[in-house]
């Protein structure tokens, strides 16, 4: 167990190092930020001064090594545009993104699992088919188009829900959150639903196929033979057994929810990290782009690592298989 965890940890570290190099090489190949930030009338001397101030005059490998050294202490340099440390800019926007992602995941779970359960219990009924049709549409619709239609319908046509921003926020432990005020909640609902739609469809499919398989198992037949009520058979015996893969998927997909928040945040002008990334790409704000990507990549690697380790605890075949060199 320990050796598996250590090996997995080493692998994660290697991936992180590789990604940091790729991100650095990639991002530092984009245009010249000096041109963008400096007054167009500035003379060559001033240009040179700005270039040196940003450390852009040094050779490439020196820039990377300097970057690695400072990045390991959490310092990604200062934003060219806002002139504040890039990491603190990201961390300041992160709560909004996390709140949106958590709320979206919650909607997907609260709506998706019951619908999937119904579709799994009655796969050939009208309701079961309707739910499956819904999930196919949910898979086909591009996130940004759904967002647009939601705005068109609920904000422009009906005027029920606001279309941009976070609304009023309340500080909880020094972190501003939207979901505790009515105004914030109305702002949160549409983007969260938009972000949730894809995961919702995924959860419906997963729960449905899991339920259908579980219903054929002997323990369900036995529970029925014992005369347990339908609610108990489904609520305890079926649900408990299909939860393991579902929880895994929810965990693994949380990272992709944060990645897809880039799109949702742009549409609903939600002031989170995704919108910051798009703005930074348009303004060639390299430190912020690099900091965002590395924060997200670290988050991903951490989630993957956690899920793998937890899984190997639950299912010994994973770590035994890895030891014999077969992989999984």
């Amino acid at each position, binding site marked *: 167990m320990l050796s598996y965890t250590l090996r997995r940890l080493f692998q994660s570290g290697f*991936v992180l190092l*590789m990604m940091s190099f*790729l*991100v650095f090489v*990639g*991002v530092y*190949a*984009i245009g010249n930020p000096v041109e963008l930030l400096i007054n167009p009338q500035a003379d060559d001397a001033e240009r040179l001064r700005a270039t040196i101030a940003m450390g852009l005059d040094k050779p490439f490998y020196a820039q990377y090594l300097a970057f690695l050294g400072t990045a390991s202490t959490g310092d990604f340099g200062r934003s060219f545009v806002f002139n504040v440390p890039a990491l603190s800019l990201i961390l300041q926007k992160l709560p909004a993104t996390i709140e949106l992602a958590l709320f979206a995941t919650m909607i997907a779970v609260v709506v998706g699992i019951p619908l999937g359960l119904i579709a799994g219990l009655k796969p*050939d009924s009208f309701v079961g088919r309707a739910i*499956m049709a819904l999930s*196919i*549409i949910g*898979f*086909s*619709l*591009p*996130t*940004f*188009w759904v967002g*647009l*239609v939601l*705005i*068109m319908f609920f*904000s*422009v046509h009906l005027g029920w829900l606001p*279309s941009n921003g976070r609304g009023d926020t309340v500080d909880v432990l020094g972190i501003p959150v939207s979901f505790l005020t009515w105004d914030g909640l109305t702002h949160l609902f549409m983007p969260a639903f938009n972000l949730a739609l894809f995961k919702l469809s995924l959860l419906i499919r997963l729960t449905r196929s899991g339920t259908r398989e579980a219903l054929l198992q002997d323990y369900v037949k036995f529970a029925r033979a014992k005369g347990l009520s339908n609610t108990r058979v489904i609520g305890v015996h079926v649900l408990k057994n299909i939860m393991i893969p579902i929880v895994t998927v929810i965990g693994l997909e949380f*990272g*992709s929810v944060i*990645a*897809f928040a*880039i*799109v949702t945040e*742009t*549409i609903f002008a939600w002031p989170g990290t995704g919108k910051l*990334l*798009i703005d930074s*790409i*348009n303004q060639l704000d390299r430190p912020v*782009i690099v900091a965002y*990507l590395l924060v*997200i*990549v670290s988050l*991903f690697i951490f989630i*993957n690592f956690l899920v793998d380790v937890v899984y190997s605890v639950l299912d010994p075949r994973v770590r035994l298989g890895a030891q014999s060199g077969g*992989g999984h």
Partner: protein
Amino acid sequence: MNAAAWLKRATKSALSFGEAPRIESPLQRFWSDFSESRLALIGLMLLTMIILIAIFAPLISPQNPYDLSQLDIMDSKLAPGEKSGAGHTHLLGTDDQGRDMLSAIFYGLRISLGVGIASTVFALAIGLFFGMIAAYFSGWVDTLIMRVVDIQLSFPAILIALILLAVLGQGADKIIVALITVQWAYYARTVRASALVEKQKEYIEAAKVLALSKTRILFCHMLPNCLPPLIVVATVQVAHAIALESTLSFLGLGLPITEPSLGLLISNGFTYLMSGKYWISFYPGLALLLTIMSINLVADQLRDVLNPRLKK
């Protein structure tokens, strides 16, 4: 759905017991299997229509939307069905520059489908190559290729495409490169899995005994047998590629304004959505949705038809 289709086919064949056996060519059998689902047929018809529209866009569009001499700023933001100053009726309205939306959508389809199909074909070729090599040679080659595939697939496609486009900049060629990079890993994994199965079969042994060259065994014997699952993945991936391209174009990172795909048209109309001028982004969105959905419907049925486990 799979089980139901299988049951239907099973009962059909049980009922036809005793009749003279009909000899079908593989293509005929494929078609009769495929046309069993009405939904898939509708999808196929829709898709054929969309592809024809994309190919013949210059012939059937009421207007060349990029010929500036045909545009009149006085006709901008007309609602669907309104007449322009010159007396043309714009069925789907016009955008902020007086461009006929129907024509813009026809031309946009061309670009969206073109980018989607081109990236899929290249990614398929690359994935096929690496997947076959990984399966055939195994050992460290396999480990190396699959490690890269695993790492790449653990990140969402949109994040990788975004990083690449942030680096490469705008342009049709650049977005195709980004889409290929995102997609090749799916094919490599699929091909490897089916090639590993094929490798164990007798005909490969026989080919080896005949001392055929490795390239010949790989590409003339193994490859054709690995194709069916790949066709399914490729169909689904075309839809993904189109959706991803439109998302990236919507975010302003995909195609430049001179080559407006559907995503860019939608993004362009987004500004006017708030003032109630819904048609500038709604109709391109609808075209996008129909394209993706028709591809998905066809892919779903292809998966059922080409799945050997459902065959009699």
